[in-house]
């Protein structure tokens, strides 16, 4: 765990405790009589958490307004569905294809529009996801079976074990979320992650310091799509029948809201926001006709209460304290510029 020595990783350990607690919760739910419904809700949350984490790379970390992320998810799910139900591949073999095709798609469509500013990129990504959805509806290349969608998708099988019950899939989905969170956490704490943030805060300064903006933006897009594609692979056997109706624009909005609500790309915030929004949407159905009205109201209220998001953007912590005062200064003591202001800086 060399990685843990470089920097102070409080968030990392929070994550481990969180996922351990989740595992216990699942066992508890499995052994209770109505627990299956709750497991399904948790699994839904898990899917959205993984998706939101992938969108976070694009929107939260790089600051690219992508409001069509559901398209990548849809494409991954469709690739898996076609390979599995038409060609009969086991689900697990479709994973790399779903991920790579989705990443390639994202790369190709992002290439001509990556230079667009904020809101213009936002509307273009909406357009891309709608075009893709319409293509699915219209049975493009005769592969997607139109509005009916693709049915009869098998369950995931790993080492001879079939993930059928909600309980089994819980571990699959949340295991994936845990791995995702961990890898993205490392990524965030690296040259790569910092470069994405530089672009988010100031493109001109980032490029003036040697960051190849177009390249990083495209990689961010492709990486987010790659991951969303993998989540699609997990989702298709989870829901068994996929159709274009599952991937409407509203789902993109929900994802977007999760990332914004999380606050500045914070991973812990993403998990909390997923629980809050997706969980709330599921739980509120008990209010029947009033459920969506309440959901909309809650969205407004939550944003007003926490306009900066649930969590603050957490600054990376570096283990550099021991280096203070070790290196020479180019400014003599008599000048006093640094000395005088140092006090103010340190407070």
């Amino acid at each position, binding site marked *: 765990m060399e990685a843990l020595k470089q920097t102070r990783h409080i968030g990392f350990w929070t994550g481990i405790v969180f996922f351990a607690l989740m595992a*216990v*919760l699942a*066992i*508890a*739910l499995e*052994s*209770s*009589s*109505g*627990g*299956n*419904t*709750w497991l*399904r*809700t948790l699994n*839904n949350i898990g899917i959205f958490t993984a998706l939101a984490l992938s969108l976070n790379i694009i929107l939260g970390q790089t600051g690219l307004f992508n409001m069509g992320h559901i398209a990548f998810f849809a494409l991954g799910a469709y690739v898996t569905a076609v390979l599995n139900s038409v060609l009969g591949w086991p689900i697990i073999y479709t994973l790399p294809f779903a991920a790579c095709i989705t990443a390639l798609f994202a790369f190709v469509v992002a290439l001509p529009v990556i230079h667009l500013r904020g809101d213009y990129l936002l509307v273009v990504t909406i357009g891309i996801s709608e075009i893709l959805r319409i293509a699915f*509806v*219209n049975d493009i290349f005769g592969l997607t079976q*139109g*509005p*009916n*969608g693709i*049915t*009869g998708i098998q369950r995931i099988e790993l080492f001879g074990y079939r993930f*059928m019950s*909600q309980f089994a899939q819980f571990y699959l989905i949340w295991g994936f979320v845990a791995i995702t969170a961990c890898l993205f956490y490392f990524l965030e704490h690296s040259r790569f992650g910092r470069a994405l943030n530089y672009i988010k805060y100031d493109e001109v300064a980032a490029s003036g310091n040697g960051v190849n903006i177009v390249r990083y933006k495209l990689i961010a897009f492709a990486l987010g799509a790659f991951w969303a594609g993998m989540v699609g692979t997990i989702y298709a056997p989870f*829901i*068994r*029948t996929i*159709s274009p*109706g*599952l991937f409407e624009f509203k789902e993109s909005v929900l994802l977007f809201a999760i990332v914004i609500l999380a606050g500045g790309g914070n991973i812990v915030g993403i998990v909390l926001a997923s629980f809050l929004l997706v969980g709330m949407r*599921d739980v509120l*159905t008990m209010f*029947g*006709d009033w*459920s*969506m009205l309440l959901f909309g109201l809650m969205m407004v209220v939550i944003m007003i209460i926490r306009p900066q998001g649930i969590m603050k953007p957490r600054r990376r912590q570096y283990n550099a304290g021991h280096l203070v005062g070790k290196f020479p200064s180019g400014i003599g003591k008599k000048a006093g510029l640094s000395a005088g202001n140092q006090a103010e800086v340190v407070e």
Partner: protein
Amino acid sequence: MIKKTMLALATGVSLAFAFPAFAQDVRIGLMAGLTGPYASEGQDTKRIIELMIEDLNAKGGINGNKVQLVIEDDGSSPGTAATAATRLASTKVPAVIGTYGSAVTEASQDIFDEAGIVQIGTGSTSIRLTEKGYERFFRTAPRDDEQGRVAEESLNKLGFKTVAILHDSTAYAKGLADELKAQIDKNGRVNTVFFDALVPGESDYSVVLTKLKSANPDAIFFTGYYPEVGLLLRQKKEIGLDAPIIGGDASNHVDLIKIAGKDAAKGYRFISPPLPTDLDTPVTKEFLASYKAKYGTYPGSIWSVASGDAFIALVEAIKAKGADSEAIADYLHNDLKDVQGLSGKISFNEKGDRVGDLYRLYEVDGDGNFVLQPE
């Protein structure tokens, strides 16, 4: 130590989530679109089933056991339906009635199948629902290929030589459009001069109507749902397109007249299973009377009535074999023969499809009534 804590946690949580259970009651699931675009269908369905259960329980239930209904809202959308189905599955009901909309039904099929629950679809006519080999899926609605066959038959009988086929890209309408086209191509009695879709939920269909005008067909067959039909009829009149529109069974809804206006709706024809009010068996008449007495109106369409058929079939099966999914499925496949339902006699074939000839031709008169045409 850790094991102990986990156990304690598990027990605590499981207590919190436990449902109260009444062992002697027979529980039946209902999945219906109580919200969303097909909400009026879903609400009717819920009323019908609730009324029938009330009746049944007043008469002593099934073999002395009261029937209890577990309702989940599928929101008229596939995504919500999958969640609703899982909820129902986790309540361990032996059988579920529902739902309206083929795509919505399809999203729930796998989940019920995996849980071993018997499902009886009501307003789901898409062919492939019963082509997947699920042993516990049934439906009281007819299939689209049957409807396609009757549609081609009717077009021919009405003397149309060229027809434009229009659908709305939904699972059901696209399926029926494809089926109709296949029938037309097979028989060669009518020509298809136009085949395209509109986007449902829009307010302006003048573009597609103009396009239809230029295709100049004898008749337009629209396979979509009643709100679009209403609007098409209304705007067709404004644009001066004379070819009549003929519709499929999804246009069988009284709201059609409200949207189109009586003038524009006059002369509109559609094929459909008989309307609730055209059902003339004593069982049905009695039921409709009590429905009217309770809710002040008749059910809006045949599809909610078809859910009543599903309920009747289920009750028969449970009466004979008990509330066990496997036994119910077996009974429905093999032993249920010509039981008197609300919309006619009920039997199922080996695929789970309803046996029998249901479709009729209807025409709207000047007062906005749906009039059954003589065969």
